[in-house]
């Protein structure tokens, strides 16, 4: 190929930069859609997977495993039934079980979930690549009305150690009443994890019992008020919890342990392997994902049809120019390359611009998506599936460019040195 042809193609494209710029934008937007959805998909998967690393089983009252996982770990969806405290104690006694962490959910603070648990939570909970929790400031909860808050809770409300906060009964849209009579003191702030932990207010299991002492059936008992200082005198052993995280001595025991728990006689329980439940979850959302990807593929197809149309439309005005090139020695093949290059140039610029837009979007919207959906958007170079997607886009662009290229080739042959106008 004549090395001057790409230069000529670039000069010609620059000459029509406004029109072609629109095409670049349209290709870029299809890249944003296609790669963006793929990226959201993988980011969601990693984020979810990283939020439960190191837990072998999640145990709760018998329910849909995916629902249990979503509620217990991601605070998404409706509350499941509780499991009885004796079942939890029995679970902890299972010889295969190394550790258990009880989880008690249902209350909230300014939209953040309140989690009742024990000190074991700070010992055994793992996120990311099996990273333990780290307390950035302060200490674990010790007193009944102590609380340890996640990084986002602290930044969102500007809380510092020693601040007093009150919890609300219920979560999300169904906040019913304030536990205003029993304020908590912030004694610890966790380091950021990029998981739902950051948006959680942690208190002891006993505290959850204490704030509900004067409650019955989800509402305060009228006329009954138990001041905070008296709450300690009650038996604060919980009657039930939402779920338990379980770690085994030996991972290979997981199926046996799961079978044992599922067969528990005292109470119907379900033991969920987080990885398996997540796989089920992704299978469930798979159809929606494929629809989205299909729509984006259509958008990409539309922009490439537009690209062909625009380059073809420009061809009419360029017949004379092509004849000039023919007269100075350009072969029909050179004319073909010139036109094909233009399409390729638009495609490549579109891909680069699309990736730039994606990066910008990830850094601008990252915070929002994280707090809202618990998904960490990673700013990174395309890899794996994304790369093959980009290659497919470029290949389509190249194929689309062959159309005007071929048309110009035919024209060069038919027109000779003087274009027919």
């Amino acid at each position: 190929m004549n090395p001057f042809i790409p230069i000529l193609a670039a000069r010609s494209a620059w000459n029509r930069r406004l029109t072609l710029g629109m095409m670049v934008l349209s290709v870029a937007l299809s890249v944003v859609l296609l790669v963006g959805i793929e990226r959201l998909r993988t980011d969601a998967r990693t984020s979810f997977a990283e939020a439960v690393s190191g837990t072998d089983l999640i145990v709760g009252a018998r329910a849909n495993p995916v629902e249990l996982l979503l509620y217990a770990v991601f605070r998404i969806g409706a509350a499941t039934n509780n499991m009885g405290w004796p079942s939890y104690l029995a679970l902890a006694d299972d010889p295969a079980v190394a550790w258990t962490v009880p989880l008690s959910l249902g209350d909230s603070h300014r939209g953040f979930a309140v989690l009742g648990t024990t000190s074991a939570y700070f010992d055994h909970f793992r996120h990311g690549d099996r990273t333990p929790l780290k307390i950035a400031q302060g200490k674990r909860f010790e007193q009944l009305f102590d609380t340890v808050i996640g990084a986002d809770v602290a930044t969102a409300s500007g809380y510092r150690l020693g601040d007093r906060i009150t919890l609300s009964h219920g979560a999300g849209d169904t906040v019913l009443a304030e536990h205003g009579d029993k304020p908590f003191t912030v004694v610890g702030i966790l380091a950021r994890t990029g998981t739902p932990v950051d948006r959680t207010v942690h208190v002891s299991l006993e505290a959850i019992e204490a704030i509900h002492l004067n409650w019955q059936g989800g509402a305060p008992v009228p006329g009954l008020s138990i001041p905070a200082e008296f709450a300690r005198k009650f038996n604060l052993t919980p009657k039930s919890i939402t779920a338990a995280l379980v770690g085994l001595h030996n991972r290979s025991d997981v199926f046996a342990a799961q079978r044992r728990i599922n067969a528990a006689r005292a109470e119907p329980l379900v033991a969920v392997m987080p990885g398996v439940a997540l796989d089920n979850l992704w299978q469930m959302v798979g159809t929606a994902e494929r629809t989205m990807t299909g729509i984006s593929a259509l958008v990409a197809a539309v922009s490439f049809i537009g690209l062909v149309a625009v380059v073809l439309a420009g061809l009419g005005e360029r017949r004379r120019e092509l004849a000039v090139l023919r007269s100075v020695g350009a072969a029909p093949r050179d004319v073909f390359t010139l036109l094909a290059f233009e399409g390729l140039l638009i495609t490549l610029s579109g891909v680069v611009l699309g990736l730039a837009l994606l990066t910008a979007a990830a850094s601008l919207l990252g915070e929002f998506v994280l707090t809202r959906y618990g998904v960490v958007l990673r700013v990174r170079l395309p890899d794996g599936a994304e790369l093959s997607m980009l290659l497919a886009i470029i290949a389509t662009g190249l194929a689309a460019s062959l159309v005007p290229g071929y048309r110009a080739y035919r024209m060069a042959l038919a027109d000779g040195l003087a274009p027919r106008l």
Partner: protein
Amino acid sequence: MSPSQAILIENVRFRWKPDLPWCLEIPRLSLGLGESLFLHGPSGSGKSTLLNLIGGVVIADQGGVHVLGCDFRHTRATARDRIRADHIGFLFQQFNLVPYLTVVENVLLPCRFSKRRAERCLLQSASPLAEARRLLARLDIAPNLLQRRVTELSIGQQQRVAAARSIIGAPEIIVADEPTSALDAGRQMAFLELLLEQCAQSSSSLLFVSHDRRLESAFSRTLALDEINQAHAKERDA
């Protein structure tokens, strides 16, 4: 073997499409080395078609078109493109230039497609760029115009830029298809003299096509296409 003729056309018949009548039927037409030939004929007589045959862009249905001793009957399309790039400078009535390139870039265009013409620039100048500047100066293009886009030039200026482009790299043959018709009478003569002078300097043969007979005195030979073109003679008889 060095050819005795720059262009030799023998018993050529050509039509644009198989279902059309012959457009050209020429028993013999030649252009000698260093010769300047004035070819005239009414509109539609096939002048531009003849130039397409000489450029090797289309191929005769019968007979031989020889350019610098090369018989186009036995030359592949790519080789004909090469010959056109290396040995022929074309100059048209209008639409000679690539609109998005600068004046200098347009003049240098043949050197981009022909190494030979780029190298032959060095006979006169230090580089193709210097040669382009030299030719443009000779053709009275002000230095401040060189980096302008050609669309900002007047028609007359564009014609001279196109002339510089046809001459650069001293091709053996220069083919001009009514290059002066957009110019006024005074400028036509001046332009023609410049063109002839440049051809003489690089000892190029010039085939000059026009229907304006006032210019023919400047050439060494004149030919009427409709007299040698049998196709049109028959048409008239019919």
